[in-house]
């Protein structure tokens, strides 16, 4: 197997930095394919090369990951991209300052509905089976209108955590189709490994989670994939590495070494020739614990989207390194914040904006890697031809409130702006 580090000059880390002995970094993770970079860094020698021993600990819930990080049982953690933002804003039940100096990946999520609901979407919306994500959302809107007219119970959809990309992505997709997630559906939280069982049992009618669970549901014949994360906004960050700011401050060398190791691991994960080795390791019970065949196909984005065997290949379904995927861009933290405002999780204010942006730390990324490329940290998002949002709206971090108000579908609680805090 090629480790591919030799061709990469690590100019960033001066010789003096790698003199000390091995340091142990305790890292929490949730068994998902997007923990790949952390797992590869540990399994394929990238951490070791930087004098780091990654002590990986598998956990069961995002709340646990957050708490164990806050209470110093983990040094760093695999986190949902909105978690550090929520923590900086003091949202959630145990907020403790958390920063992200490195993003772990893009992509990986999808929205799946039950085969039963999809059938109805086909009947009502005249779907052919190869329709785009927006057409699927419009078809769902038609079904919900019908359900309301007939007095049927509204569909229940599962997401993973209140401050998750999945929550905001599901809401974004629904709203793009003209569906109000708060009044037209019921959003509930379902732990990812239980999603396909919950769908099969009829406890939920759809869900938005990370890999491999969408593919697992469609392979089992209980679900139909109707949108991928890429359909909503291609460059949206998915998971990040979170850490306490005080830990980062007192361990600058370790932070730098860790970023260098993760950068090398991410680059390795991106190479097609390494995907087999990666799949084998991820399939292990210590990590994701899902069939190796499904993981391999998930990594390449070869989807069986329905029980009839419809195929869809999603280009770059997982991006671990390319296109500056690891750069923790403050404008993206601000986009997450804009969705928190949109759905009434927080009242908008300039102070909150500042806190939200401070969750992502490109300065640490730049220092560790000697990264000199110009990046507009506060530039507009969704502007480039190949990086549009599903509804065509562009995000300008300079005028967040205006941006939020332009959405026809948003939480009513969100509209009252206060600039006091």
């Amino acid at each position, binding site marked *: 197997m090629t480790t591919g580090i030799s061709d990469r000059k690590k100019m960033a880390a001066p010789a003096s930095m790698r003199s000390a002995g091995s340091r142990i970094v305790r890292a929490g993770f949730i068994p998902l394919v997007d923990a790949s970079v952390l797992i590869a860094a540990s399994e394929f020698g990238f951490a070791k090369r930087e004098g780091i021993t990654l002590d990986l600990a598998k956990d*069961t*819930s995002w709340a*646990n990951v957050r708490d164990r990080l806050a*209470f110093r049982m983990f040094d760093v953690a695999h986190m949902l991209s909105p978690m550090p933002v929520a923590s900086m804003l003091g949202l959630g039940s*145990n907020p403790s300052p958390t920063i992200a100096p490195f993003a772990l990946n893009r992509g990986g999520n999808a929205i799946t509905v039950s085969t039963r609901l999809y059938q109805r979407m086909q009947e009502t919306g005249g779907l052919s089976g190869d329709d785009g994500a927006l057409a699927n959302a419009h078809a769902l809107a038609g079904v919900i209108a019908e359900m309301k007219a007939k007095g049927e119970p509204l569909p229940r959809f599962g997401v993973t955590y209140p401050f998750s990309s999945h929550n905001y992505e599901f809401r974004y997709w629904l709203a793009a189709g003209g569906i109000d997630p708060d009044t037209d559906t019921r959003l509930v939280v379902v732990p990812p490994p239980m999603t396909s069982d919950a769908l099969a049992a009829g406890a939920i009618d759809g869900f938005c989670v990370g890999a491999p669970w969408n593919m697992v549901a469609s392979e089992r014949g209980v679900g139909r994939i109707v949108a991928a994360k890429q359909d909503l906004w291609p460059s949206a960050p998915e998971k990040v590495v979170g850490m306490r700011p005080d830990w980062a401050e007192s361990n600058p060398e370790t932070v730098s070494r860790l970023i260098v190791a993760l950068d090398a691991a991410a680059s390795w994960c991106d190479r097609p020739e390494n995907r087999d080795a990666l799949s084998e390791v991820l399939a292990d019970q210590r990590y994701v614990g899902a069939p190796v065949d499904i993981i391999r196909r998930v990594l390449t984005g070869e989807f069986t989207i329905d029980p009839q065997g419809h195929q869809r290949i999603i280009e770059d379904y997982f991006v671990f390194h390319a296109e500056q995927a690891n750069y923790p861009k403050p404008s993206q933290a601000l986009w997450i914040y804009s969705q928190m405002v949109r759905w009434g999780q927080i009242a908008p204010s300039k102070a909150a904006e500042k806190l939200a942006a401070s969750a992502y730390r490109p300065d640490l990324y730049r220092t560790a890697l000697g990264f000199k490329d110009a990046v507009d940290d506060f530039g507009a998002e969704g502007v480039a031809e190949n990086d549009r949002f599903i509804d065509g709206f562009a995000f300008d971090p300079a005028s967040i409130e205006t941006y939020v108000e332009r959405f026809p579908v948003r939480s009513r609680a969100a509209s009252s702006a206060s600039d006091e805090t």
Partner: protein
Amino acid sequence: MLRDTLTVLVIDENRIRASIIEAGLREAGHDRVILVHDVNGIARKIEDLQPDVIVIDLENPNRDMLEHLFQLTRTLGRPIAMFVDRADASSIQSAIEAGVSAYIVDGLKKERVKHILDVAVSRFNAFSKLQRELADAKSALEERKVVERAKGILMKMRNIPEEEAFALLRQTAMNEKKKLADIAQSIVTAANLLM
């Protein structure tokens, strides 16, 4: 907010552990303890019961569901996750090691909640100990069974008395620096393959 007794909701899929916690809390003078094993419909239950403290095990993946619920329900105030007191590192350590988390509603006196959590932590530990002992006893029993079978095989195949068969097993284990049960297991496996 000031009530004499606090209502404690214990969410645990493990019924035995939940009852052990309940008994502990009742002994300590908390009689309003409600056990929930299944998180289905938990939102409704929380709204009806208005618990002051919610105790949940850390291995329960439905913790994220509770977090979501707290975001939605305003009736509960703002429950916060806690391991006693943020400043109290040793208590946090022991709670996490035991695998307990609790959510408390604002405005409660810390000492009273601390007491509840201390009871929960000690009961969680008692349960783990019980489970460990049970597992040990079970594996000891299994080991004894395997040794008996191995002895029987040796007696039959080598035509030797029981004592000699046992001595042979023990000597082999010593020579190979392995556990007696492991040697016995390999004899049983080999016999199954060969006979």
